């Protein structure tokens, strides 16, 4: 519970966001700028330091607080003010207003459940739907409260869904509130799925209990498993006015013409068979390899035409059984599952994803450090495989190909081992709102490169920043949020075994970011970088150069401008220059030593040089004497 100091008396509450769950930013922006009636709207958000097993910075969102209480309490009991009349009159109307307004904004709510419906005030009948911004659509929503198609996917990979999904959730909520039971709890997934498919979700959840009257018609209409038959906003309004004819809900034919027995269970429904294959892909692969697939398709799906092209795309290779399951078998099972349930999720290696649910699934995998799931998603990023799936479901799921196209520029990074790429890059590219989840930032919230630089500046004040840029999460976050940073990270990765060069490159990189994002002076970071460069400076051989560089570094340290650190001091160039001149100095010194050694020995008259020079000198003396004597002899005075 929070207190609004600006508007005393206004009921608000604060929600602390978990860093590994991506928020729905567009929903926040829309609801904050123009609040929607009958929905818990966000008022503001910001970063706060909280005491959560130590001081941690978290994103906190302030919401309007409905004061009437939840329609379905956490103790499993229905609010005493809820009754059939209120359900039929005020609750349905309030919820419809909220859902319609949200849909008008261009997004779905996807978080409608009895515990997330509130009376707006202690004494009124107005009902609010809880917030839908803090988690991806349908994220970890109970299986029973998700429409059948979406429920088949993993609880973290259900994707955006569609507006019909909200009406199903509303219907399921009304059903639970009518019976006063948490119908979504305590039910085994597989048996509930079987019941939902065979008897429809309405009957499966109610356990065969009828809801009489108009309310029953409404709930049955809202909980229809086929989206085309499910009631929408207009149908509900018609129902209010009593003019609309109650729609009949029918079981649309997903049935096969002949049951297929898999693992001792006879399946008639294609969706159930696809789900069964998805739960045990190895066994499914053996089953598919053991049957005459074209004949099986012809007998089981008389309405389907298995063209040669489709058969080639499905590529079910018969026979074998030798050598166990091959990696391609998982893809084969996945293609067949898509053939069986074209509008359903991609079933692959024991997991089921909607392609637009991959961002949240990947975020969840990283938060649990589930390397297996990350590996499965990486294996899924095979363009040929995804194209084959798109081709298989092309007739009944035209959105799939669009989603594959959207994935293309992201999935190329997945298999790369380079710093700044890999699955970490995919994570941040798919979830632009996700903060950097590096262990180094466990206590701070990093939503942008600017925040990262400021956080690094704060961290630099209390501890070392060794090899911070070699952190794969930090590198991926930077490359996903910045542009043209891959080359810088390649250079940094190449220098990881050379600490001196790594320090220089780190300083250059941070300087470039400081300039690009026009950041204020970062004194602590600059100080740490300068300290990090001290080894580089110490490694400089030339004393004068070392002194000059040290003086410049001290000057930059005081200024806090990392960019200046690199523009005024190009350490890489200085290092190269110093090494070159040092080599020249060594050569000069070796030459001096050689010459000194040569000059140091004692010169004897017998040495060739001394002898030659001595004799030449003597000859000169003799010649001069000869000239003098000759002159005196022939020209006496």
């Amino acid at each position, binding site marked *: 519970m929070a207190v609004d100091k600006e508007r005393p008396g206004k009921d608000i509450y604060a929600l602390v966001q978990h860093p590994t769950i991506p928020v729905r930013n567009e929903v926040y922006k829309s609801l904050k700028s123009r609040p929607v009636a009958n929905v818990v709207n966000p008022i503001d958000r910001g970063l706060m330091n909280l005491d959560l097993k130590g001081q941690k910075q978290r994103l906190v969102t302030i919401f309007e607080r409905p004061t009437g209480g939840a329609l379905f309490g956490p103790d499993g009991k229905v609010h005493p003010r809820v009754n059939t009349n209120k359900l039929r009159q005020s609750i349905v109307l309030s919820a419809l207003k909220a859902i319609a307004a949200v849909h008008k904004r261009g997004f779905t709510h996807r978080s409608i459940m009895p515990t997330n419906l509130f009376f707006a005030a202690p004494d009124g009948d107005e009902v609010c739907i809880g917030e839908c911004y803090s988690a991806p659509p349908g994220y970890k929503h109970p299986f029973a409260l998700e429409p059948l198609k979406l429920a088949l996917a993993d609880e973290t990979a259900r994707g955006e869904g569609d507006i019909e999904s909200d009406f199903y959730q509303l219907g399921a909520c009304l059903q639970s509130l009518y019976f006063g039971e948490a119908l979504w709890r305590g039910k085994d997934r597989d048996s509930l799925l079987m019941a939902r498919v065979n008897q429809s979700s309405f009957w499966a959840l109610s356990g065969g209990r009828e809801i009489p009257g108009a309310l029953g018609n409404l709930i049955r209409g809202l909980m229809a498993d086929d989206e085309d038959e499910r009631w929408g906003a207009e149908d509900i309004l018609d129902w209010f006015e009593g003019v609309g004819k109650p729609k009949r809900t029918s079981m649309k034919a997903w049935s096969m013409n002949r049951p297929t027995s898999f693992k001792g269970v006879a399946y008639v429904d294609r969706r159930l068979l696809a789900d069964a294959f998805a739960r045990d892909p190895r066994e499914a692969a053996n089953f598919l390899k053991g049957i005459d697939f074209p004949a099986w398709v012809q007998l089981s799906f008389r309405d389907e035409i298995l063209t040669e092209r489709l058969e080639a795309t499905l590529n079910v290779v018969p026979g074998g059984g030798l050598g166990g399951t091959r990696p391609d078998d998982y893809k084969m099972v996945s293609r067949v599952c898509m053939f069986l349930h074209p509008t359903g999720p991609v079933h692959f290696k024991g997991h089921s994803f909607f392609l637009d649910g991959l961002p949240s699934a990947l975020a969840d995998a990283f938060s649990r450090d589930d390397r297996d799931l990350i590996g499965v998603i990486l294996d899924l990023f095979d363009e040929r495989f995804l194209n084959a799936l798109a081709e298989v479901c092309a007739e009944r799921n035209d959105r799939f190909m669009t989603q594959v196209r959207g994935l293309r520029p992201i999935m190329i990074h997945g298999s790369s081992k380079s710093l700044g790429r890999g699955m970490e890059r995919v994570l941040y590219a798919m979830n632009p709102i996700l903060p950097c989840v590096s262990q180094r930032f466990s206590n701070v919230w990093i939503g942008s490169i600017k925040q990262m630089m400021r956080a690094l500046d704060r961290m630099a004040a209390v501890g070392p920043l060794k090899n911070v840029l070699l952190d794969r999460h930090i590198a991926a976050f930077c490359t996903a949020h910045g542009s043209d940073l891959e080359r810088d990270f390649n250079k940094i990765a190449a220098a990881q075994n050379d600490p001196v060069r790594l320090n220089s490159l780190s300083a250059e990189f941070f300087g470039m970011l400081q300039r690009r994002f026009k950041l204020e002076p970062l004194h602590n970071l600059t100080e740490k970088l300068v300290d990090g460069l001290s080894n580089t400076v110490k490694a400089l051989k030339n004393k004068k150069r070392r002194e000059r560089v040290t003086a410049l570094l001290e000057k930059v340290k005081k200024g806090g401008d990392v960019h200046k650190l690199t523009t005024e001091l190009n350490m890489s160039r200085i290092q190269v220059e110093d090494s070159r001149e040092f080599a020249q100095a060594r050569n000069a010194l070796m030459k001096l030593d050689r010459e000194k050694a040569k000059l140091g020995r004692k010169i004897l008259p017998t040495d060739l040089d001394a002898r030659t020079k001595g004799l030449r*000198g003597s000859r000169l003396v003799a010649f001069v004497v000869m000239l003098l004597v000759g002159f005196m002899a022939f020209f006496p005075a």
Partner: protein
Amino acid sequence: MAKKKKQATPMRMRRKINKRQEMSAFGPLLVAGLIGLGIASLNAVGVAIVGLAPTIVLSLTAKGINKAERVQCVGFMNIAGVLPFIAMVMDQPRELMFILFNPINLATMYGAAAVGYALVHVGPMLAAIVLQSLAQERIKTLNQQRQALIEQWGADVIGDKDGPEEEPGWAQGRRPSA
């Protein structure tokens, strides 16, 4: 033996020596000078031949390196000793015999050649002393240059990065600690 010695001399050295011997023009010039002198006065030639006997003998017998310099050195001094008597004979031709057989004159002429020999021996000694002192001066300059380089670049430039290495314990007779 002689053959063996010849074989021991490197071919390049022998070529050098021959070249120097070939280059010496002192002998031909001396002969030319004597012929020229003979045209002017035969008596003077006689004095010159007798007086220059040490130089002629040396030029015929001298071997080894710097032969030309030695011959020239002795030759120039010998000529310096002979020239006054040549001038005397040319002035008074009848005094030839007296000049030739006067022991003092002969001693003067051969003494001058002896001084030439002395110069041959003393010259290299003096040269060695001078060269040695020049080398010392040069070494001082080199030391200054070396010191300047070491000051500028530190001890690394002479390859002494870590300073003198400490002797390991085993080398100092200590037992390795357990």
